C-alpha cells in the first residue's frame, strides 16, 4: 500500500512556507516603514522588493581563507531552522504543518540552531570582527533561552499541554495574556534576542563591528540571512499570539485572518517600542537577562502556578 504520509504532509508544509514568505514581507514592510518614519506608505511596500532585487543582483564573494563549509552552510541552516520552527505554528483550526504533543518544546529547541548558524557565520569569516561578533552571538544563546522558556511555560501550565493547538483552544474564554502580563512582557523582550532585533542587534548591526557576523556576506546569501532574521522575529511574535493572545480565535473573521492580524499588530507594537531605545551594549544585554529577566521569569512561574491551580482551575 502506498504510503501517502509524505504527500499529505507536503501541502500544509508548503502552505507554511508560503505563509512564512508572506509574513516576512509583512515584517520587512514594517521595518521599512519605521526606517522612513512612515513618511511614504507606498515606499514602505516597495522598499523590501527593491532590497531583494538589489541583493539578488549583487555578487557574492567569499573572503580569503574563510571556512568554506561553515561560511556557505550558515545561511542555509538559518533558513531551514526557521522553516522547521514555522511548522508548529497553527494558522487556524487544523491548519498546522506539524502538530506534535510537544509543540512548544519543539519550537524553543528549534531556536538554538539559528543562533548556531549566526555563530558559524561569524566564525567562518576568519576575521577579528566576525570573531568578536561570534562571542556576542554565543552570549545571546546563553542569555535568552532561559527567560524565554520560563516565560513561555506559563501558557502550557495553564493549558496543561505543550501542543500549540491545544494551548490556543484553552484560551476560548480568556486569553492567557490577560492574567499573565508579566509572562507576556518577559516573552516579548526575550523574543528580541534570538531574532537579533534592535536594541539587541549588536551582533550584526551598528558600526562598531562593521556588520559583525554578516560583515562578509553579500548577495543572495545575505538575502537568506535577512529573510531568516525577519522570519525568526515573525515566528516569535506568532508563537506569542499562540501562547498569550488566543491564537486564531476571534469573532466574525476567519481564524487565519485573525491570527495574521494579531501577529502583525503584536510585531508592530514590539517594533515601535523597541525603536525608542538605543542599541544595548553587550554587557547591558547580559545584565538585563540574568539580573532582571531570569528572576522575573521564575517569579512568573510561581504566580502562574498559583493562579492556574487555585483561580482558573487549570485548562478548560
Amino acid at each position, binding site marked *: 500500500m502506498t504510503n501517502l504520509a509524505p504527500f499529505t504532509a507536503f501541502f500544509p508544509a508548503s502552505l507554511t512556507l508560503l505563509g512564512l514568505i508572506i509574513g516576512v514581507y509583512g515584517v520587512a514592510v514594517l521595518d521599512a516603514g519605521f526606517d522612513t518614519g512612515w513618511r*511614504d506608505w507606498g515606499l514602505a511596500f516597495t522598499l523590501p522588493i527593491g532590497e531583494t532585487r538589489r541583493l539578488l543582483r549583487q555578487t557574492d564573494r567569499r573572503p580569503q581563507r574563510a571556512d568554506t563549509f561553515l561560511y556557505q552552510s550558515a545561511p542555509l541552516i538559518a533558513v531551514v531552522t526557521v522553516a522547521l520552527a514555522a511548522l508548529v505554528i497553527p494558522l487556524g483550526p487544523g491548519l498546522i504543518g506539524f502538530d506534535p504533543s510537544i509543540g512548544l518544546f519543539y519550537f524553543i529547541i528549534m531556536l538554538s540552531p539559528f543562533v548556531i548558524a549566526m555563530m558559524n557565520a561569524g566564525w567562518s569569516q576568519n576575521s577579528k570582527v566576525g570573531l568578536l561578533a561570534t562571542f556576542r552571538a554565543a552570549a545571546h544563546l546563553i542569555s535568552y533561552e532561559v527567560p524565554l522558556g520560563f516565560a513561555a511555560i506559563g501558557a502550557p501550565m495553564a493549558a496543561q499541554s505543550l501542543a500549540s493547538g491545544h494551548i490556543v483552544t484553552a484560551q476560548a474564554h480568556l486569553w492567557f495574556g490577560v492574567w499573565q502580563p508579566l509572562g507576556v512582557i518577559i516573552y516579548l523582550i526575550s523574543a528580541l534576542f534570538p531574532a537579533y532585533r*534592535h536594541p539587541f542587534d549588536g551582533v550584526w548591526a551598528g558600526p*562598531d563591528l562593521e556588520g559583525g557576523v554578516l560583515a562578509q556576506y*553579500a548577495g543572495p546569501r*545575505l538575502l537568506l540571512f535577512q529573510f531568516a532574521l525577519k522570519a525568526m522575529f515573525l515566528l516569535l511574535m506568532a508563537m506569542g499570539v499562540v501562547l498569550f493572545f488566543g491564537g486564531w480565535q476571534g469573532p466574525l473573521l476567519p481564524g487565519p485572518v485573525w491570527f495574521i492580524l494579531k501577529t502583525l499588530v503584536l510585531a508592530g507594537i514590539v517594533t515601535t517600542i523597541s525603536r525608542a531605545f538605543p542599541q544595548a551594549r553587550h554587557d547591558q544585554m547580559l545584565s538585563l537577562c540574568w539580573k532582571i529577566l531570569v528572576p522575573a521569569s521564575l517569579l512568573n512561574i510561581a504566580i502562574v502556578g498559583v493562579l492556574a491551580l487555585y483561580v482558573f482551575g487549570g485548562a478548560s
Partner: protein
Amino acid sequence: MIGNTNLRPALRGTRIYTYLAVDGGAGALELARLAGQQPTLRAVSSSRHADALLIVAPIAAPLLPAIKMLAQAMPPGGRILIFPTHAGQDETANMVVNALPSAQILSSLTPAAIAAALRAPVPPVALPDAPQIAEDLIDLPQEHEIATELAVLSLGPIQPFTAGPARFWLICDGEQVLECRIAVGYAARDIAGRMVANAWPEAAAVAAQLDPLAPIVSRLAFVRAIERLQGYTPPETTLLAREDALALERARNWLWWSVRLLRLLELAPLARQAQALAGALDAVCMQGVPEQHASLIPGSPFPAYHAEMQDALHACAHVAQTLAQRVRGDRWLRMRTAYIGVISAETAQKADISGPIFAAAQHGQGDVQARLLTRLTHTAAALNGVADRTHLTDDATTTSQGNWQVPAGEAHGRASGPRGDLSVRVVSDGGEHPVQVTWERPSAAALRLASVVLAGQKVADAEVILASLDLAMAEADG
C-alpha cells in the same frame, strides 16, 4: 492606506543604491544630511556591499592607498564618485581621478545627483592593483598573568566616528579596550605652509580651509591676528556680525554632529528630530544670512540680517531646547551614555581642551551624555543670542573697514569654534605674505586625550566616546 502615493511608478522606480562614504574632512555635515534624505539611497559600512564609493574632498595623498583598497573590494560594476566641495578642492579631486580613472565627479551631493551618476552608463575601466601596504607591526603590551590572547581591532582610516580619516588600533582583551593607538595625517594638507607661500588675502582664503566644516572660525582667527598686528579695532557692527556668523556656524556643526551621534546610538526618533532641526537651521541660514565670509574680509560690504530671521531662529532654538530636554529625560539613553568616556575638568584643562568638551566637564559629569547635552543647550543659547541681536542691525549695508597692509611683528588670533578655541600665531616681516603661521587646533588637543580616555572602556563604548569628542581630522592634521 497608501494615501496619495502612486504605486506603479514607485514599483518601477524603486531601485536601492548603497554607498560607502569616504570623508576627506569636509563632508561630515553634507554626509549626515545625505544619509537621512532618501530611503532608496543607503549608507553602508563596508565597500563589499556598496554600489558606489562616495568620496568627499579634500583627499590627502596618505589616504589614497586606503581608497584604492576600498575600490578594489567593491563588487563588479561599483562606481567611484567624487564630490569636490568647492573650487579650491579640485586639485585633490584630480588626484583621485588620476589614481582611479573610472571616478566620476559629482556636481552636487544630493540623492538625485548620485542616483543619476549611478544610472549613467560608464565604460568599465580596470581598477589598478591594490597597493601593497606593509602590515602595521604593533608591539602588543605584555600579556597578563592569566593567559589571554589580545586582539587588535583596526578602525579606519575610513570610519564613521570622526569627521575625516584617522586610524585607531584598539588593543582588546575580549570586549575590554586595554590601549588605543592612533595614526593621523591622512587629512594633512600643510595649511600653515601654504599660507606662508601666499599673499595675505590668499592666505586668509587658505586659512578657511583648515577646518572645512567651520571655515569662518579659522579664517576669523587669522583675520584677528592681522588686525592685532595692524592695531585696528573693527566697528561694533562688524564685531556683532562676526559673532553671529560664528554662533550660527557652531550651531550648525553641533546639530549635525548630534544627528551623527544619535544615528550611531541607533536612536531613530531622536535622530530624525535632530535632523529636521539641523535642516531647518540650514534653510534659515541660506535664506536670510548674508555672505558670512564678507564680514571677515577687510574692506568688503555686507548687508544686515532680515527681521524674519529672528522668529525662525527663536523657533529653532526652542526645538533645540526641547531636544535637549528629551535627551536629558531619556532614561535609556542615559544608561547607554552616562559615565562613559569621563573627562574631568582638571584633565581637560591640563590637556588644553576648550569648547563643549571642557564645558561638559566643568558643568556636568564630563561623560558622553554631558557632551551631547552641552552641545544641544549651547546650540539653543547660540541661536537665541543671534536672534536677539538681529534687531540691532538695520537694513542698510555696512562696510567693514581694514586693509591687507600688515606691519612687521607677531600676534595671536583666537576664535571660538564648534570644537573649541582655535588660535593662530602669525609672524610678519611687513611684506606681502606671512613669515610664519602656527595653529593651535582644538581637535588635535582632543585627539591627544582620546587614547587616555579610551583605555579601560568597552569596544562598543569606545566608538561612542570617539564620536562624542567631535574630532575634525582636517583641522587636527592641519
